[in-house]
C-alpha cells in the first residue's frame, strides 16, 4: 500500500511540468531566468512581439534573444525576429537566462512562453512492474498535451499581434483617405489663388 502510494506520488511529481507564459514591456534590454531541474530536459521557448508603442511604425523591427546556460555559455541566439519558436535540450541543470534586446527606439510588448518538459524514470520504487509501462505512456501523453498547450499559447500570441496589426491598418486607411482629401483641397485652393494673383498682376501691368 505504501509502495503504491509512493509510486503514485513520484509519478505525479514527474508529470508536473514547468510552464510559464507572461507578457512584459521591453525598453532596451530585459532578462528572465528559469531553473532547469534535470539534465536532458527539453526546453521549449517561444516569443511574439505583440505591438510596438509608436503611432506610425514603418519597419518590421524585431527583438534579439540570447539564451545563456548556467555557466554563462551561449546556448542559442536569434536576431531581429518578431515571432519565433525554439527548443533545445538542456545538457546542464541550473539557471538558464533568456535576454531580449530591443533595437528600435520604441517600447515593445513581448509575449514570452517557456516550457520545460522532463521525462524522468524512477525505477527504484517501481516494485509493481504491472503499472510501470502504463505510467510511462501516461507521462508521454501528458508531455504531448503540455506541448499542445505551449503551441496554443504561441498561436494566441500571434493572433493578438495580428489583431493589433489589423486594427492599425483599419485606422491607417481612414487617416490616409482624410489626409489625402485635405491635401487635394488645399492644393487646389493654392492653385486657384496663385493663378488669380498671376493674372491680376499681369492684367494690372497691361491695363495701366
Amino acid at each position: 500500500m505504501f509502495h503504491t502510494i509512493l509510486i503514485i506520488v513520484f509519478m505525479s511529481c514527474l508529470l508536473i511540468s514547468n510552464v510559464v507564459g507572461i507578457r512584459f514591456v521591453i525598453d532596451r534590454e530585459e532578462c528572465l531566468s528559469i531553473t532547469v531541474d534535470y539534465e536532458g530536459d527539453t526546453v521549449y521557448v517561444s516569443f511574439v512581439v505583440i505591438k510596438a508603442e509608436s503611432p506610425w511604425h514603418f519597419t518590421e523591427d524585431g527583438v534579439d534573444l540570447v539564451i545563456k546556460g548556467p555557466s554563462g555559455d551561449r546556448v542559442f541566439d536569434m536576431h531581429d525576429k518578431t515571432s519565433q519558436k525554439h527548443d533545445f535540450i538542456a545538457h546542464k541543470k541550473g539557471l538558464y537566462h533568456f535576454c531580449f534586446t530591443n533595437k528600435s527606439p520604441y517600447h515593445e510588448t513581448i509575449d514570452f512562453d517557456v516550457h520545460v518538459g522532463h521525462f524522468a524514470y524512477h525505477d527504484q520504487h517501481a516494485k509493481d512492474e504491472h503499472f510501470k509501462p502504463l505510467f510511462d505512456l501516461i507521462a508521454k501523453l501528458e508531455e504531448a498535451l503540455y506541448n499542445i498547450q505551449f503551441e496554443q499559447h504561441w498561436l494566441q500570441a500571434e493572433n493578438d499581434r495580428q489583431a493589433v496589426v489589423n486594427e492599425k491598418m483599419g485606422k491607417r486607411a481612414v487617416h490616409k483617405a482624410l489626409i489625402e482629401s485635405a491635401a487635394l483641397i488645399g492644393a487646389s485652393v493654392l492653385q486657384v489663388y496663385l493663378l488669380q494673383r498671376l493674372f491680376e498682376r499681369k492684367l494690372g501691368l497691361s491695363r495701366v
Partner: protein
Amino acid sequence: MAANNWNHHIPVVLLLVILWCTTTQGIWLDLPESGTKCVSEDIHNNVVVLADYSVINHQEDSHLHPAATISVKVTSPYGNNLHHNENATHGQFAFTTTESGNYLACFWVDGNHRAGDRLTVSLDWRVGIAAKDWESVAKKEKIEGVEFELTKLEGAVEAIHENLIYLKNREAEMREVSEKTNARVAWFSIMSLGVCIGASVLQVWYLQRFFHKKKLI
C-alpha cells in the same frame, strides 16, 4: 507497531515530496533599482489565477545585511486593485477573474536597500488548469493511481478545448475587422477620387468666372 509508525510518516513524506516538486518552478525577473517592472497576461473570464512571488538574494553576505523588500500591485483590466503588498520579501495572491482582459502585476523596489544590489524576484504564476489543486481533488473524490493521472489529463484536454474555442472566436472577430477594413479602403478611395474630381471642377468653374470678370474670355 511498524505499520503504525509508517502510517504516521506517510503524510509527512508525501508533504515533503510534494513540496520538493513544487518549489522549484517559476520564472526569475531582474528588478531595476528605480521604476517598476510589470508583467501581464491576457486572461478570460472566470479563470482561477494563483501566483507566488519571493525575492531571491544573490549576495554572499546575505545573512549579515537584511534582505531588500519589494512592493507588489496587481490590477484587473478595468483598474480594480486585486492585491497590494508593501515591504515584503515573499507573498502570494489568488483570485478568480471576473473580467476578461489584460491583468497586470507590477513590482518595484522599496527605497530602503543598498544601491548596487541586484534584485531578483521569483514569480510563479499559474492560470486556469495549472492552478488547480489536484491533491485536494484526489482526496475529495478518493481516486488514486492511474485514475488520478487520467483525471488530470482529462482536465488538461478540456482546457485545451476551451482555449481552442476562444481562439476561434478571436479569429472570427479579427476576420470581421479585416472585412471592415477592406470595405473602408474601397469606399474611402472612391471618396478621395470624388474629392479630387470635385475640386478640379470647382477650380475650372471659379477660374472661368474670374476670367469672365476680367474680360479675358
